[in-house]
């Protein structure tokens, strides 16, 4: 039995990629345990043209790992991707796995260079789905300007995975002007968000089994490294901290920041950018958008005197055109995030207890 059909929402770039990269003719349709055995079948998978997609000189060394030289201070990050469903409105797990690690490096103030790519495939995954994910990975890596230089593929028995899990690790060189450090966050700093909150989380939720609802909301997964690099080129040390509010959402990232810096955070609800459909979906589902996961956005804590210029620069970038100043760092109420509500009241925005659970009514 094959896995459930999936729908891919393709943007122009992906369609072009799909056309440029037709799936090679193979004598197998699905991944079996043997493809991860390291033996003949593994070689067949590797040699079939499947991995030629990701070709580059370093990967072609075909050794146990890649060797290369990089100048200066380095940043190193890793993340695993277990998203369900694997294909979702606006993207797929492959794209996410590249963008995620690229963005983590960017948040360190680094320019991402090389990535490792490791798959854990569940027996029964169709080659078609795997191929589409690989094409997506290729497109995302090209867009971000990174190379995949080493990798691994394992196959687990049916029922021991969820179609496909991906781990990527990445290495990048820290921007010479960057001085990203939690300790540099000061009272008075402004909090800028680069785009709409909660889009990704709601897009995923809309296709989760049992919760499907009709919507045109698509994940905003994208790389943020070029956008961040430009900011660092211009504003350098005035950018005190960068964070991508992925799991746990904006509320979690800001609570961690308040806790670690022992400073307070003040947010203004009205200024937090959100798509109207997302706002509506959160309302309907009883979810607080501040706790919903994000992908294609980041939070920048910047020196107050630079805030307006940073905002202006960000807004000129396609990926930052909905950027907004959403609050500031304060000395009052240390370690707490307080938000001014739409009607002018105040409430504490706490750390979430666990995953947000939809309310009964």
């Amino acid at each position, binding site marked *: 039995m094959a896995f459930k059909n999936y729908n891919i929402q393709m943007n122009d770039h992906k369609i072009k990629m799909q056309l440029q990269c037709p799936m090679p003719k193979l004598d197998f349709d699905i991944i079996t345990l043997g493809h991860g055995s390291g033996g003949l079948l593994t070689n067949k998978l590797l040699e079939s043209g499947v991995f030629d997609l990701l070709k580059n000189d370093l990967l072609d060394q075909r050794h146990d790992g890649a060797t290369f030289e990089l100048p200066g201070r380095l940043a190193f990050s890793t993340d695993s991707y277990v998203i369900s469903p694997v294909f979702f409105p606006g993207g797929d797990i492959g794209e996410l796995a590249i963008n995620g690690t690229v963005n983590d490096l960017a948040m360190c103030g680094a320019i991402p260079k090389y990535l490792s790519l490791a798959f854990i495939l569940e027996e029964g995954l169709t080659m078609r789905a795997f191929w589409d994910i690989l094409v997506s990975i290729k497109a995302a890596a090209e867009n971000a300007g990174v190379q995949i230089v080493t990798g691994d593929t394992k196959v687990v028995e049916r029922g021991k995975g969820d179609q496909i899990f991906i781990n990527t690790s990445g290495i990048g060189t820290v921007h010479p002007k960057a001085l990203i450090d939690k300790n540099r966050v000061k009272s008075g700093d402004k909090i800028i968000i680069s785009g709409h909150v909660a889009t990704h989380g709601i897009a995923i939720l809309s296709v989760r089994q*049992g*919760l499907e609802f009709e919507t045109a909301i698509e994940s905003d997964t994208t790389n943020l490294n070029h956008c961040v690099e430009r900011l660092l080129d211009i504003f350098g040390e005035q950018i005190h901290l960068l964070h991508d509010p992925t799991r746990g959402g904006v509320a979690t990232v800001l609570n961690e920041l308040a806790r670690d810096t022992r400073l*307070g955070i003040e947010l203004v609800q009205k200024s937090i950018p959100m798509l*109207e459909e997302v*706002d*509506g979906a959160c*309302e309907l*589902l009883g979810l*607080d958008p501040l706790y919903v996961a994000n992908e294609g956005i980041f939070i920048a804590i910047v020196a107050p005197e630079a805030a307006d210029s940073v905002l202006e620069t960000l807004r000129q970038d396609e990926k930052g055109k909905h950027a907004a100043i959403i609050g500031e760092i304060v000395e*009052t*109420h240390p370690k*707490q995030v*307080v938000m*001014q*509500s*739409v*009607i*002018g*009241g*105040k*409430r*504490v925005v*706490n750390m979430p*207890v*666990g995953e947000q*659970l*939809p*309310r*009964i*009514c």
Partner: protein
Amino acid sequence: MKFISEYRDQELVAQYLDEIRRVATRPWTIMEVCGGQTHSLVKNGILQMLPENVRMVHGPGCPVCVTPLHMIDKAIYLAEKKGIILCSYGDMLRVPGSKHSLLESKAAGADVRILYSPLEAVKIAKEHPDREVVFFAVGFETTAPANALSVLHAQRAGVTNYTILTSHVLVPPAIEAVMQDEDAHIEGFLAAGHVCTIVGISEYYPLVEKFKIPIVVTGFEPVDLVQGILMTVRQLEKGEYQLENQYSRVVRPEGNPEAIKVIETVFEVCDREWRGIGNIPMSGYELRPEYAAYDANLKFDVHIEKVPESAECIAGLVLKGIKKPHECPQFGKKCTPQMPLGAPMVSSEGACAAYYHFSQAMEAIV
């Protein structure tokens, strides 16, 4: 958002608050019955914006909070029984049973699924004819039509592997129980708008007359709430007691006749135990005998020993408005949203959880 943002208008809220300040000459204690209203009062910071002499007390209208411990234990027992898929609304999962929560059962391997609609559970039952699907049907009058409809759907489609574990509760008997408690000193009520959307407002007239208290059927947005509070305070100041409908854009006096028909077809009114409060006569729904085949209690012969509530939890006093959550010795110490002793600390609509956030806010803001 059209039809919502209008009711989140900062200026309008400020005007109503000014008016409340002007009108309220004495201290008044008003209970908002519904957990959704508590949630909105806290989320929007309205509690701190009200004048000191208007005191809001948070009522028992949080389905998560009042579902009795042994019902949670039953749901957990069923979830852990081989072959059963237990479906539930999301926020029931974290509520502590006598040993653990549904969320912990899920982690240990039970097939527990979070759904938004019980109709989805019927679909799952159809897709898994070899399994038994149980829906944990909790909630007030608001969720009753959908839960009842799921039974009718299952019946129509000939689905025989679908049952519900019912623990429905009703608002008017809860108001009566609060008023009859000598220690509760509630002077006016904001009735739950959504409940009245379903069943109408007629059941509230006798309560107004019997207890000589103003009841204002109120919505959930900030403007709704401050307007509902103002309407209540105005009546109190004039010494009047009437049933008023603040939420008339949604609530029709007769309710939703179709929904009522569905409820009455499937359910009948029964005595019900409320967590923390105890038995309230004629305060719940149970399946009519002709739908016994859809009763998980009967089908699986569930017998769960009743375990006493944690002696340290004063949820009952909190739910009746006799004690404020922070007056509980365990509040914020042994009992937090991470490690709740009782249900009101679990749900975002629960008074204790609301206060937990609120008191932190006070510390932070003052």
